[in-house]
């Protein structure tokens, strides 16, 4: 039997009250691939991320992470099993310094948990990894600034830094380039490419340039259903996708 996919969704449904948002999504994300989820506004992309990362449970269906059923588990359990996500609306610790923001997501993965017996600024391994992540997201010079006063682009970079700092091998990025200028987007794409090496990446993105540049495979989500999953070239050529989405929104 082939190794289990990094992420496996089976017949996932989600309704808010009587309104179905996700209507039977089945999707395998292969370990090590960069997988983009695209679709028009309101297609349910963020809802899908919220189900997978444990923000809320699906109404029906199962989610497996590296073969383990994680359906309905709380976010911290899913994170401890090696899945980490970023948020479309920046979601950081505003009063903590940039350095501390990154450090918070390093602590659990290095097994310090709820420790009362360690002095946090004397932990070599924590410090090393925090410094390395800060260098990767190019915020070393700003590490003592409260995260709340960073510029928008810097906060987006920090958002990604917090997401990857825990060393998760399945990374979900929810519109990492939203609201960025052209040059900022280019920089962010290179950052994501560099950080996702050897990891499984699932990314929701509106910028088609980013998607076709970055993704190994693309899934198209329309009204809560995946209408196609394929390589970028074949998605571009797919008639149904063009009708449903690309033809009208491509820019």
């Amino acid at each position, binding site marked *: 039997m082939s190794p289990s996919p990094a992420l496996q969704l089976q017949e996932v449904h989600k309704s808010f009250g009587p309104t179905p948002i996700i209507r039977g999504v089945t999707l395998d994300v292969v370990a090590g691939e960069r997988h983009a989820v695209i679709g028009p506004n309101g297609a349910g992309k963020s809802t899908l991320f919220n189900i997978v990362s444990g923000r809320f449970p699906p109404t029906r269906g199962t989610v497996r992470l590296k073969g383990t059923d994680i359906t309905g588990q709380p976010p911290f359990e899913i994170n401890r099993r090696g899945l980490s996500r970023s948020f479309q609306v920046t979601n950081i610790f505003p009063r903590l310094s940039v350095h501390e923001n990154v450090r918070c*997501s390093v*602590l659990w993965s290095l097994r310090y948990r709820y*420790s009362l017996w360690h002095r946090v600024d004397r932990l070599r391994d924590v410090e090393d990894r925090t410094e390395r992540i800060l260098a990767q997201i190019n915020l070393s010079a700003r590490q003592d600034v409260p995260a709340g006063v960073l510029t928008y682009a810097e906060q987006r970079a920090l958002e990604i830094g917090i997401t990857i700092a825990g060393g998760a091998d399945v990374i979900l990025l929810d519109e990492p380039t939203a609201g960025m200028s052209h040059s900022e987007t280019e920089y962010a794409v290179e950052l994501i490419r560099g950080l996702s090496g050897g990891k499984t990446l699932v990314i929701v993105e509106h910028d088609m340039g980013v998607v076709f540049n970055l993704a190994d495979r693309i899934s198209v989500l329309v009204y809560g259903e995946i209408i196609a999953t394929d390589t970028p070239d074949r998605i571009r050529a797919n008639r149904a996708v063009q009708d449903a989405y690309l033809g009208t929104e491509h820019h």
Partner: protein
Amino acid sequence: MMDGRPSAAVSVPLAGVAARRGRRAWPWLLAAAGLCVLPLVPGLDSNFVRSLVSQMGIAAVFALSFNMLLGQTGLLSFGHAVYFGLGGYVAIHGMRLINAGLPIPIPLVPLFGAAGGLFFGVLIGSVTTKRAGTVFAMITLGLGELVVAASLMLTRFFGGEEGITANRTRAPHLFGLTFASQLEVYYLIAFWAFLSVALMSAFTRTPLGRMCNAVRDNPERAEFVGYNPQRVRLLAFAVSAMFAGVAGGLHAVNYEIVAAEALGAARSGAVLLMAFVGGIGSFFGPILGAMVITWLQVSLSDYTTAWQLYFGILFIIIVLFAPGGLAWLIALHLPLARARMLHTVLPGYLAALAPALVMVLGGSLLLEINYRLATKPELGTRMSLFWVAMDVSRPWPWIAGLAMLAGGFYAFRRSWALVAAGWHAASERMREDGAP
């Protein structure tokens, strides 16, 4: 920033740098040495001072334990005295056992308080910390009332209205310490207070302590980096309750009695006041608040029966005009002190001080007259306030009070321009000197 005042945001990065540069040991050594020699300094070697500082030490531990919840974890508790009181009760029962022959010396009694606080912190906290925010605050309020009600019903443990008493001198005497004198009690309290402050300071630098801040800022994001915010809150609550219990244990040793007022709403309110007046945004702020409020409680109540009214006014002023408390006011001036530029803002402060005093005097004159007329009408309209005899059936005391209040306020308001000018000059000069 037109008025030249530095914003809080400017000083924060500096604090961050200092924090990561590691802390120095000398302030701690200095504080320890100060606590050792204080009761022996000529002029301060009275039992009154020793007792006052003992109370301050107890209050400081209690206020810091409270701020572990409010300032560090973002949990506003309206019933924190419950853990102070329950810790105190466990300690006083421990002392009674010692009186009955249990071979434990008195200096270890605060550990009974710690155990009591921790036990009830875990027990009650496992319910209250399920939720944060307003729900948490409401639950603590309800539980506080519940425990007070229980304390009046379960008289076996709580001793009803009279409380439970014990004798700290009837115990095994370690190193010849009998604790018959206030001096020995002072040293016991100073030791435990110092140790507790050091431990609570260390707590802020543990992984759990840092995650308390993270959960305060953004509990949702904490969940997505592997932490269960409910668990973080519960652990913080338990540790906080344990230190509140230590304070309660010290209270038991100091007074040899614990009664229902130890866990009541008034004490829960007082600790909130201490933390806010001192400043919930800094670690040491609540210590400052505890010292100031304790001193006011002891001294103000000698002068006026309306002292709680003044507390209310003080609280409102701090919350409105210096929400960061006294610690924030001090932190604001540290860059100036470092640049040796305090003298540029001083004239403005002196100019503001005089009308402020007049205003306070006028206000409290009116307040005292009204308070006296309302609470003790049988004593008539002749009274002596601020060492001046007056008859308040005549208009002049009222006119004087009103005039001082209004005139003082007007002059005070005008003096702000001088304060702002001083700040402006100071910040200009610091910029010229190339300070960041």
